[in-house]
């Protein structure tokens, strides 16, 4: 996998800057503007002085004109925590190349972008629950550590996004940017999970990974369909009409996810595995607002 991220590509990513749709709080002042007022060079507002305020923040010229002690407030720049939740369930192993491979490339790229801009980036895989990943990675030097980790990561188990987000919000208290890369099957459960994240004021992005097979399955006839996650099977006769209904249903499934995302200001993008991940990041995510 590492060979996909050559230097030229990585340099190209360096020009991209992650932006957040909402200002978030950070423990370190970084290059991201924050809604919280703090120390920086960009004036934001005044407020009355309160005991304990830094006297250096008092605007003495105002005091001279008006006789009131006001403190200058500046837009505070803080660190952006990027959390990439990577679906590593068995269903992600579907396709050639597999959705999981594609998702890992995207996750690694996003994390690399975050790390290159001195933000902390975390990649946490999940299946039936949130798994231990690599968190709070800072600096480019850590990227190879991340890539090694992702290379060894296996897709297995069933997806339980609710259990995953429940564990995530209990573990990460401070709002951050959460990018969920998954196929999002079982959309109703996925929406409940996203609701949990919204409740904790995370800025959320969802990347729906899909293969061309899922968009237009090249199958027909008497087939035994085997579920990759549960290994359950059913015998079905796939007809043209059923395929037509499937395509309509899949498009509706994607549209519902996108509609949900738009309603709650959640970034949405669909990553198709036949589109190279770098093209996806540069073109598709740029249009979706994830990449500036």
């Amino acid at each position, binding site marked *: 996998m590492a060979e996909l991220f050559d230097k030229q590509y990585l340099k190209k990513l360096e020009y991209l800057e992650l932006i957040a749709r909402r200002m978030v709080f950070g423990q370190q002042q970084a290059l991201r503007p924050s809604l919280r007022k703090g120390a920086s060079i960009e004036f934001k507002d005044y407020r009355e002085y309160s005991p304990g305020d830094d006297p250096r923040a008092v605007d003495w010229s105002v005091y001279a004109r008006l006789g009131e002690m006001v403190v200058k407030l500046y837009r505070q720049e803080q660190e952006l925590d990027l959390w990439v939740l990577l679906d590593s369930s068995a*269903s*992600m192993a*579907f*396709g050639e190349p597999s*959705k999981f491979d594609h998702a890992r490339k995207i996750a690694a790229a996003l994390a690399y972008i975050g790390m290159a801009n001195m933000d902390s980036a975390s990649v946490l895989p999940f299946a039936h629950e949130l798994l231990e990943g690599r968190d709070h990675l800072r600096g480019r030097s850590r990227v190879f550590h991340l890539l090694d980790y992702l290379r060894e990561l296996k897709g297995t188990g069933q997806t339980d996004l609710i259990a995953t987000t429940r564990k995530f919000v209990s573990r990460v208290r401070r709002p951050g940017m959460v990018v969920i890369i998954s*196929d999002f*099957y*079982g959309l109703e459960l996925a929406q409940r999970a996203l609701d949990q994240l919204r409740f904790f004021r995370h800025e959320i992005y969802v990347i729906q990974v899909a293969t061309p097979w*899922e968009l237009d399955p090249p*199958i027909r*006839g*008497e*087939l*035994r*369909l*085997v*579920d*990759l*996650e*549960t290994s*359950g*099977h*059913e*015998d*079905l*006769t796939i*007809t043209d009409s*059923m395929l037509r*209904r*499937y395509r309509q*249903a*899949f498009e509706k*499934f994607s549209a519902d996810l996108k509609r949900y995302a738009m309603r709650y200001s959640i970034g949405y993008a669909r990553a198709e595995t036949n589109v190279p991940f770098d093209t996806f990041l540069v073109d598709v995510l740029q249009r979706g607002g994830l990449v500036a």
Partner: protein
Amino acid sequence: MSLLAPWALWFGFVAPLIVGLYLLKIRRQQELVPALEFWMRLAGPAPVRSLFQRLKRWLSLLLWLAIVACLLLALGNPVITAGSIKPQSIAIILDNSASMQTQETDHGDQTRFELARKEIERITKFRPVRDEWLLINAARRPQVMQPWTRDRNAIREALQDVAPHRGSSDLRSAAALANQLLSGKVDPLIVVISDGAHGAVESLVQDSQNVAFVRVGNTQDNLGITDIRVRMHPQMTAHHVYLSVSNSSDQDIESQVTFELDRNVVEVRPFSAKARSEWRHTLTLQAPEGGVLSARIERPDALAIDNQAFAVLEPVRAAHILLVSPEEQAYFFEQSLLAMGPLVDQARSRTVSLEEYELLADAERSADLVIFNGVKPTVLPALGAFLFVNSWTSDVPASTIGELTMPSLSIAKRDHPLTQYLNLGGVTIARAHEVDLREPAVVLASSQNGSPMIFLFSRPDQQFLCLAFDVLDSDLPFRNAFPILLRNAVAYFMTQGHAWVKDQYTIGDTIRSLRPLPSNISSIKFARMGGESISEESALVEQNEFAVDATSEVGVLRFALNDEFAYAAVNLASYDETMIAVSEQKLGESHLSLSTGLGGMTPWLALSAIATLLIAGEWLTYHFRWTE
């Protein structure tokens, strides 16, 4: 049911092959999907759990097994019969009589003849074994249309060459011919395809054990002219036309018959014909000039050919008789001739002695009939009819070789016009000539030892009627037979004796000249009278005779011989053909074993059709997903 090609069952191994392939088919190919639940929502709640769904799964296999079974059976050429069928030699006799031209309303107005042809095609089609076939067309005379063959298609092709005949058929001769042709054959069988009208077939079947009768037709609605005859009134004053109309149906029918003389209506006679009976009528016509009479029934029915009949009315003409006789022996002849009234032209007829006769000019010697009573003229006229009594000239090819004493006299040819109404029994003859005929002659009466006593010679220009005894040496002049004999002679030479052809023929007859034609005639012309135009044909005259076969239709033929015309009417006039009602009795059907068809088709063809339908059905059920 049995199979004619049981080897086809060896192909039954295809069935387990299909089952195997089907099992492979239903062992579905596995396809990994990321989310099965997503597909299940599309497929429905319970796709293959119900009994119906399970049946659907196996329906396709069942259909294919049924298809294979049908094809195997079709390949095996199955035979559906009550018993076993062995190859036979089958002579088919197709009744080609006029009644077979009856139109059957129950079969789209097809004639029985057409139905019979179809029946033969059916029989050849549904005989499952390789029989030997023969086809005989039973028309006026039986004719082999297809000699023995094992190719049933040849029979069907030969059927196309059989033209409908509108006359009577001779089934008995056809059966006799078939029996001759069947001699030496294994398992012989005669199949008669006929309407069996008027019981023509019953006797055949009863006479033979190997005759099967296949009946065609069931219509009985027919009213037809079964007889029409004309005779001159005894006083030569009028024609009497006798007409007989038969009703074949089981209901009384009221209709009318129209008589036309030379296309002019002379009488329209309503009548009521009782069921299965005849209506007879005699019409008296004053037609001294003669003419062509037609009788037509004004009612459409199943058989049209017998609705019209024709008759020829000869012109009325009194005979010119010249009696050459010694005066003292002429009494009985003169009395008898006088008694004939208008039949004899009394003004021109006379009695002369031989001497007077010899002195007559040639024109005066000619008469319709010259009677030589015991005398022999030196020279006979070149043309005419002559009655010789007790002696004859050398023109007559008969020689006296002895004398018969007290010979008996008996009629040898009863159906001749000269002997009608004649009773010669008990006639006493004292002596007579014992005669040797040097040429063939019509012997009308002979003695007990076979010596001709009354005989007739016909030549192209001369006719001789000879009595080999002197009537005065017998009691014949005192008997009624004498004037009757003379009257028959006069009437015969005035009508039939002069006629070249008979006035009545039935369809299919060959019209031959009744007497030799003059040697200067090499051909005759004849025409069918009817419609506005007359189309003439010609027939060759060979050995002073002609033969014309143009009697396939009802009508009148006109023959032209030099300047003279002769007319002949051609009619069906057959009671057997008019009575088209058929017998419901089944005769000898058991002798003919046929395989049972399926829906009018041979079993193998029906099975192939079923297989095709099943294939189409299987395709449809698969296409519309009724099966899996």
